[in-house]
């Protein structure tokens, strides 16, 4: 096969796998930002915090990173509930969400990042599972398990989330709270309780995504910064509250980044992705897959 074509094919395939990781990182945000209208800028920082805890748990217990991520998820659910309670008490209830709420989450993000530097130092941390160095080959195309396993795990987690939101009463209530909290109140459901639950869920998802992140690449405290733009870009391009849109946007994003990295060098890939976000924001703020407002 033509080497350039092979390079392009490989770039697209590993871009799709990378997109799986991005989908995991963005799906929690699709819940908090998309459905609850809470601009959690700290989401990627929480993901990185989850990744650090996975490294510790994994090293200590000698277990798989993805399993460790699942084990710690309840802890992060509680953390998310705590953050939402504070956010609701100080900002949402007062109607000060816009400016003060943004600054609040910006501060939380910064506290997490600097806290990780103080606790673990600025070095990279990693945890290699047994499949970390195994690569499947399909003809010309490489399928490294290091990328494939987290991508599949991420899609499975998002699938479960989708079923939960579609099939359970609480899940439907989460979708409803974004549209009409008053109507929810009339059905004897407390919107604040639903939002608390949903926000906890979104932070737990961030922690699970942290587990996937550890498998794919080493993490450092500042790893979250590059993800802020990514996850918000994916969330907006995916049409905010749509999980399917989020997955499609994440895959497209992964491919765009990876193909750029393959042909022009990895240092250019952020500019392409973020330039894309700027264009989307400027010309189609409702997202590629969203409906016009």
């Amino acid at each position: 096969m033509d080497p350039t074509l092979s390079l392009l094919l490989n770039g697209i395939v590993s871009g799709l796998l990378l997109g799986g990781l991005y989908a995991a990182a963005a799906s929690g945000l699709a819940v908090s930002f998309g459905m609850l209208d809470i601009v959690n800028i700290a989401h990627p920082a929480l993901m990185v915090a989850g990744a650090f805890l996975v490294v510790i748990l994994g090293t200590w217990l000698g277990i798989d990173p993805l399993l460790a991520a699942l084990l710690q998820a309840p802890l992060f659910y509680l953390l998310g509930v705590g953050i939402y309670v504070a956010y609701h008490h100080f900002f949402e209830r007062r109607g000060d969400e816009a400016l003060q709420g943004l600054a609040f989450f910006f501060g939380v993000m910064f506290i997490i990042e600097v806290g990780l530097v103080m606790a673990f130092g600025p070095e990279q941390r990693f945890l290699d599972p047994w499949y970390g160095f195994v690569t499947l080959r399909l003809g010309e195309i490489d399928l490294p398990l290091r990328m494939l396993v987290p991508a599949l795990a991420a899609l499975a987690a998002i699938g479960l989330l989708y079923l939960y939101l579609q099939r359970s009463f609480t899940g439907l209530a989460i979708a409803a709270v974004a549209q009409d909290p008053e109507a929810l109140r009339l059905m004897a459901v407390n919107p604040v309780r639903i939002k608390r639950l949903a926000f906890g869920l979104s932070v737990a998802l961030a922690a699970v995504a942290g587990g996937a992140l550890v498998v794919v690449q080493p993490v450092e405290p500042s790893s979250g910064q590059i993800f802020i733009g990514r996850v918000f870009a994916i969330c907006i391009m995916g049409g905010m509250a749509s999980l399917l849109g989020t997955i499609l946007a994440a895959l497209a994003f992964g491919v765009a980044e990876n193909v750029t990295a393959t042909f022009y060098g990895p240092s250019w890939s952020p500019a392409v992705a973020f330039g894309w976000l700027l264009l989307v924001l400027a010309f189609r703020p409702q997202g590629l897959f969203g409906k016009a407002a």
Partner: protein
Amino acid sequence: MTVAAPASAIAPPRPAAVARPRHLRFWLGALILAAGLVVALRWLGNDYAYFAGYFILQYVVLGTAWNILGGYAGYVNFGAAGFMATGAYAAIVVRQALGLDLLPGILAGALTAGLLGLGTGYLTLRLRGVFFSIATLSLTVVLHTLVVNWDYVGGSRGAYIVRPREVPPFTSYGEYLFIVMLGLAVISVGIARAVELSRIGQGLAAIRDNERAAEAVGVPTLRLKLIATTLSGALMGVAGAPLPYYSGYLNPEAAFGLAYAVNAIAMPLIGGIGTWLGPVIGAVLLATLQQAATVTISSALSLWIVGWTLVLFVALAPKGILGMVRRR
């Protein structure tokens, strides 16, 4: 025959008493304060004092610049680091291409970052609230990537600036930089104050409170927003332009540091948002605290303190220190 009505009912309501700007008093006070600072530091004769003084003053400029857009017009800019780095790299380019020194570099930084601000101003046409903030954040990443890949200014390796040992008539280069930054701080605060007390400031406040209503009653929202973003961007560039001269070396990691973006937001919020004095109070308090914590304990801890102060203030005292004082 007309029905006589009581005079008080016909008379138009008296305009609310507008405080007179008292520009002369402000400028005189600022000049006296600045001169006092220069004399006091020369009497102290300590190089570290100039170093720390510059650090605080750069944040006075940065916080004031952020406040013009964020405090007056209500548009939250997460990209302060991007604008600051634009100023810093403009100064480096001017030096490498034309051999020009610090002062022309500052001018170039103001122009470049001002143009960038004008560009983001057009973004506000379509992006309100959170979406504007996210766009500024992405703008920073795009600029960061461009600079990392731009070999002319050193790429990811960074650029060195050999600074002269001293600039007569100043006793040291540190004092020179300090006095330049002091002048820039006075000018920035003066500009912000003039904007706040003018019709522009009233228009921006109307945009902050309700942009659609402001537009409906004929406030020229786009023009005002463009003025605010350009001015805010230019002043952020001014805050960053002397940075390579201050540290003698600049790399993208340092220039685009998240700490600048967090500080630029935290300082106005802590001091009191939407007033010219707020960012000054916030910057002096928070930057002093950071310097003290950096020197005595560690720089990571000093940043941690900034984060906690920001979170605690927005939660417990959303109107900042000025708001707490005025309530009493």
